[in-house]
């Protein structure tokens, strides 16, 4: 089962309110390349993975992604805390405010609510790992986009940390893929987690 540690993985202290940036950053909370999808992708894929390394790695990265979800939620909260309607209008994010007020909601920056359609869980271990490698690159690219949209040093320090983690996860998934492919080749692991019934 899961337990919660009452701390962030990396400290967050945003000094300047910016509801527009909150709207942008929220996409990594519940958007197509965000942390909620990342966590659900890995924690769902692990049930059919055929070897101990991928079962363990997907569990551990899936859990870290929940910590990242909390970090992105913290960014949205601190950027928008207490901002009133006219601030959101002034900053051009009244659509976000209309549904959610100054709070944290899992949606893309364009307003699509979180959808599991943005994640793939195929039952094929190799396909899953390629999905994971692509997902880490996509999330890294979104953090790069956010860095180009934001000139807030406090926010960017946190975004850079999250971006780095995408790169580390990509590296680890690559190693797990190489390891599993080699085990399949040498028949140490049989099958990619799929049972053929004929």
């Amino acid at each position, binding site marked *: *089962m899961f337990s919660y540690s009452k701390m962030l993985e990396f400290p967050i202290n945003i000094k300047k309110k910016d509801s527009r940036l909150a709207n942008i950053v929220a996409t990594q909370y519940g958007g197509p390349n965000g942390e909620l999808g990342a966590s659900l992708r890995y924690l769902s894929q*692990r049930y059919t993975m055929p070897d*101990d390394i991928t079962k363990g790695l997907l569990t*551990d990265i899936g859990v870290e992604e929940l910590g990242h979800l909390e970090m992105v939620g913290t960014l949205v909260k601190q950027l928008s805390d207490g901002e009133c309607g006219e601030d959101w209008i002034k900053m051009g994010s009244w659509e976000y405010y209309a549904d959610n007020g100054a709070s944290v909601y899992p949606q893309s920056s364009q307003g699509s609510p979180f959808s599991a359609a943005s994640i793939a869980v195929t039952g094929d271990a190799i396909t899953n790992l390629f999905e994971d490698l692509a997902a880490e690159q996509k999330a890294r690219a979104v953090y790069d986009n956010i860095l180009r949209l934001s000139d807030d040093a406090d926010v960017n320090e946190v975004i850079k940390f999250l971006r780095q983690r995408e790169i580390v996860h990509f590296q680890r998934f690559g190693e797990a893929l190489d390891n599993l492919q080699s085990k399949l080749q040498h028949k140490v692991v049989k099958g990619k987690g799929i049972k053929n019934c004929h």
Partner: protein
Amino acid sequence: MTKQEHLFEIQKLNFAAYDLLLYLDTHPTDKRAFAMFGDLVEKLKKEKYNYEEQFGPLEAYNSAAFSTFKWLDSPFPWEKEANK
């Protein structure tokens, strides 16, 4: 005790402790409940420690207490072998 029996003791203590945690969330000044919570958490810690010594880590960082990295050892909790 078998591994499964030992684990079930932990699951019982953990459930009781967690249930009291929720109660305390809405009754934070209930001294009797807080004392019960303390006893349960203490027992749970001991049981977990004994279980881990015999059967391997329940939590990732506790795997540091072993001479080798046992965190990846099967079975994982969703597998039948872990629930027999």
